[in-house]
């Protein structure tokens, strides 16, 4: 699982923000996880505390904000909500679609002092 290295990337970003935005402690991290990002929210939560220990984000609360997947069908041109990559277009049954939303993993906000 790569959630450990993702948590390390999260910490690097937070440390960069701490320098840029002049804060010394993070209280809350708001993390958006796209439904199709391949990232397991539970595994992130599991690694988070251990990776943040001893940093500006030690004891920070992690708030995971799930993001639904959104796809656009190239056959019937409809947008639809998508749970899995193997889903079909609910309107025409096609597998020819583009994923428009829900592939990302993003720090949306930080609550800091």
């Amino acid at each position, binding site marked *: 699982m790569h959630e450990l290295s993702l948590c390390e*990337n*999260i910490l690097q970003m937070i440390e960069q923000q701490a320098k840029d935005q002049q804060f010394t402690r993070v209280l809350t991290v708001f993390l958006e996880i796209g439904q199709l990002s*391949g990232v397991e929210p539970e595994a992130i939560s599991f690694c988070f505390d251990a990776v943040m*220990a*001893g940093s500006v984000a030690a004891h920070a609360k992690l708030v995971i904000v799930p993001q639904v997947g959104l796809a656009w069908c190239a056959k019937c041109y409809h947008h639809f909500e998508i749970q899995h990559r193997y889903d079909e277009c609910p309107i025409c049954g096609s597998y*020819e679609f583009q994923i428009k939303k829900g592939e990302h*993993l993003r720090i949306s*906000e930080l609550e800091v*002092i």
Partner: protein
Amino acid sequence: MCGICGCGESQLTAHTHAHTHTHEHEHVEHSATVRRIKVEQDIFAKNNQYAQLNREYFRQHGIFALNFVSSPGSGKTSLLTATITQLPADCAISVIEGDQQTTLDAEKIRATGVRALQINTGKGCHLDAHSIAHALQDQIPEPNSLVLIENVGNLVCPAAFDLGEAYKVVVLSVTEGEDKPLKYPDMFHAAELMILNKIDLLPYLDFDVEKCIDYARRINPRIKVLQLSVKTGQGMTEWLQWLTISQRLSSIA
């Protein structure tokens, strides 16, 4: 220190923090100093930046790079050694091998006479673009050459990490079962080509080739599929054609 990024060490060595968990809940004074910052930064952004740099490097030097991904033991190294020995001798190739431990695969590649660099990821379950940037410094590929990257055997994590390659090639051996594209969709979604390997074993299995291809196309309607046996050599001609033509096309684009 690293010339590319100024880092002191590989990112992949997971630091294990001395973890003294004193769970006394500190009560934060909700004074005016508490503020909210909008960040809106993607976690994969950093890897993607390195990947973009690698891609630009490949483009400038006319290098065609492929990223081979699969679960452990599908036949990536076997395919690479067979490919190297069957390509024309004037074709410049170098290989980057990713494994958690050992230099066994790099040694197998070197036995063919081609340069190979082994990256050991330790606990890391995938290669990332940063480690590839280092590898390209340590083993500088020839201009207009082929760079073959064998990722860590893992059908999950390497899907999310762009290395700057032209294409991901996913190798699925028929002993793994035809349902893998549905169970591990991200990898098949990210790949340009699926190689169904070990087809010499089909007579001994209930593997449904058509179903497998259908599943893969559900995830990725544009995926190309080649059926191959490294052991018997069946399908190798088509594979070498795909490789040669794709390399040519990328030099035009």
